[in-house]
């Protein structure tokens, strides 16, 4: 298999190899083929090191959320390996996974849907303690208050209900809930995409502070390239279930090598009118193909300006091209886009 961006000098807190997640999609039409397979994640490999942020970007449906959920066994891996602190998670029983879940928490995108409207904010934040049998009447309330303070919420609001809080505040509540168990890894699935920019900025700053304070590693899923550049140490780009490029963020943004990464960076608008006037955009043809019937060979080939015959016949491996910059393309070439 591919030599990916494995780093032998540090040991990863989360280590993913050849992860495959398929979903059976049942057809609702009579007489149609009973099921089709959604190839949501196809052979992803990456490492997450203690205290760092790995950004995971890509367009809608490329498999970011599924990757994140697979880390917690919320989406069942079809094959592959996921190791937390060296321990294999794939195939663990619910009970065994429960222990590890304390160290692996997730924050969801939707600050409105992810909190139980019938629970007070304090109860919501305390719930993970209860689930893991760590709630005590002596220490519990203090831990909740502390978690609230960490995310910039006044503990006196613990008795209120989620509907009394704004979107940014609810996202902070979600983060407090994830933090209360002192996890080593936080999966952040689009934690700021539903928020207005000024509120988004506050949550991004908060995440940076918490990482500095507690040394938590983040897997930061987002489709906004600017947000990802701001928060990440390294970035992985996904297209239709595959990681096509992974590198330190400076390399990835200043010298992307995969044609898809180049197109993605070139398409993203910059809040800088002069830069915008000088830009030449790479405009991709067509739409992303369906993950139930992905193209043979390189999945990007149907839209790739560089595609040749080999791209249809051979799957390009994710190969390290130096300095932990790995690319899955038959014709990689560094290019300055922005």
């Amino acid at each position, binding site marked *: 298999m591919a030599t990916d961006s494995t780093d032998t000098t540090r040991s990863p807190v989360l280590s993913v190899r050849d992860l495959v997640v398929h979903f059976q999609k049942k057809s609702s039409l009579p007489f149609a083929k009973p099921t089709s397979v959604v190839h949501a994640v196809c052979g992803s490999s990456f490492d997450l090191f203690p205290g760092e942020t790995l950004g995971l970007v890509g*367009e*809608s449906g490329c498999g970011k959320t599924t990757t994140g959920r697979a880390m917690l066994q919320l989406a069942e891996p079809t094959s592959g390996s996921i190791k937390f602190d060296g321990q294999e998670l794939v195939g663990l029983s619910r009970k065994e996974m429960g222990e590890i879940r304390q160290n692996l928490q997730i924050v969801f995108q939707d600050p409105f849907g992810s909190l139980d409207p019938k629970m007070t904010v304090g109860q919501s934040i305390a719930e993970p303690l209860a689930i893991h049998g760590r709630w005590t009447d002596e220490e519990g309330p203090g831990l909740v208050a502390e978690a609230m303070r960490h995310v*910039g*919420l*006044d503990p006196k*609001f613990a008795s209120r209900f989620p509907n*009394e*809080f*704004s979107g*940014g*505040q609810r996202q902070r509540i979600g983060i407090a809930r994830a933090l209360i168990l002192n996890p080593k890894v936080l999966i952040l699935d689009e934690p700021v995409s539903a928020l*207005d*920019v*000024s*509120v*988004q*900025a*506050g949550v*991004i*700053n908060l995440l*940076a502070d918490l990482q500095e304070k507690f040394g938590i590693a983040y897997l930061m899923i987002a*489709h906004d*390239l*600017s*947000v*990802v*550049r*701001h928060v990440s140490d390294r970035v992985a780009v996904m297209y239709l279930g595959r990681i096509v490029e992974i590198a330190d*963020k*400076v390399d990835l*943004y200043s010298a992307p090598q995969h044609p898809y990464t180049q*197109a*993605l*960076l*070139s*398409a*993203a*608008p*910059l*809040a*800088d*009118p*002069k*830069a*915008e006037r000088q*830009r030449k*955009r790479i*405009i*991709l*043809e*067509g*739409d*992303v193909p369906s993950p139930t019937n992905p193209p043979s060979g390189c999945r990007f080939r149907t839209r790739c300006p560089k595609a040749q015959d080999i791209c249809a016949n051979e799957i390009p491996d994710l190969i390290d091209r130096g300095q932990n910059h790995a690319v899955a393309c038959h014709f990689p070439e560094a290019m300055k886009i*922005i």
Partner: protein
Amino acid sequence: MAQPVVSVKGLEVSFATEGGMLNAVRGLTFELAEQEVLGIVGESGSGKSVTALALIGLLPKTAVVKGSVEIDGEEIVGRAEKDMYKMRGSKIAMIFQDPMTSLNPVYTIGWQIIEAVRSHGKVSKDEAKVRAIELLRLSGIPRPEAALDSYPHEFSGGMRQRVVIAIAMANSPRVMLADEPTTALDVTVQAQVLLSLQSALEKTKAALVLVTHDLGVVAGMANRVIVMYAGRVVEFANVDELFYRPSMPYTHGLLGAIPSHAEDSDERLSQIPGAPPTMLNHAGGCPFAPRCPLAQDVCRSTEPALEPVATADGSVHLSACHFRDEVSSMPVASMFKGAEQILEGAEDSGH
């Protein structure tokens, strides 16, 4: 400026709600010439969509509208729906965030676009078909002949939005209004749609009012920009002035809050403390005062007018801030540095 295609004077829109009068838009004034692109930005609830709907006469009946909106010299405010219907399509075309607002799921794309071509002029079916194909091609739809026989559900979101743009340009409108036209789309698809929109503008020479919360889209598309806050225009300027010499603290805050994907920075993003006001029963004073690091007593007592600041190139640059001249010479977002402590307090007491 030559005869403007859009001329808005003192536009006010309010709604009677349980909590009292909600002033969604207050005192909006601007003009727009042919081929100009006006970006309207601002946070959720600041009145952007209500403004767009007022321009095309699509506000619900419950809206109380005052002031004047002229499109190509014709007044929109108070116009009968029957007349408005004629103007839509021929003079103004609207592009919504969800293309299915404008498309009918049960008719083919061809039927809908041919209908649009024929509805505002005497054109034979065959001529209309030729024109429909041309419009789809201009809009970047691959194999436009085949597209005529497709139904909207067979197309992706980006393709549908391009069909809507093709329909919008069918009758060479004078003004196009687009309310978050690419917000629901992925960035590579957004780039395709914005390109279609640009070719539609070149082809029709229409003016465009582009409502978006994405400052990057505005930087790339707009000539001039309105920043709205709590239903008011708080800043108006050409795009370079607005991005490089913002003159209203709120605009500084917005610009400082967005990270860049073009450079690395370890700087913290600027946070605007607090939350936007509800727009019920405006109390007087600058609506941004409770969140503004520069606010003084005068800000809390007197609402600043929208007035000019000096510009190097003599262009019109308006700001609704008592300290507009000082603010215009400050580095972008500098006043928000260290304002985070205020945030914690203000946000908690805001609810």
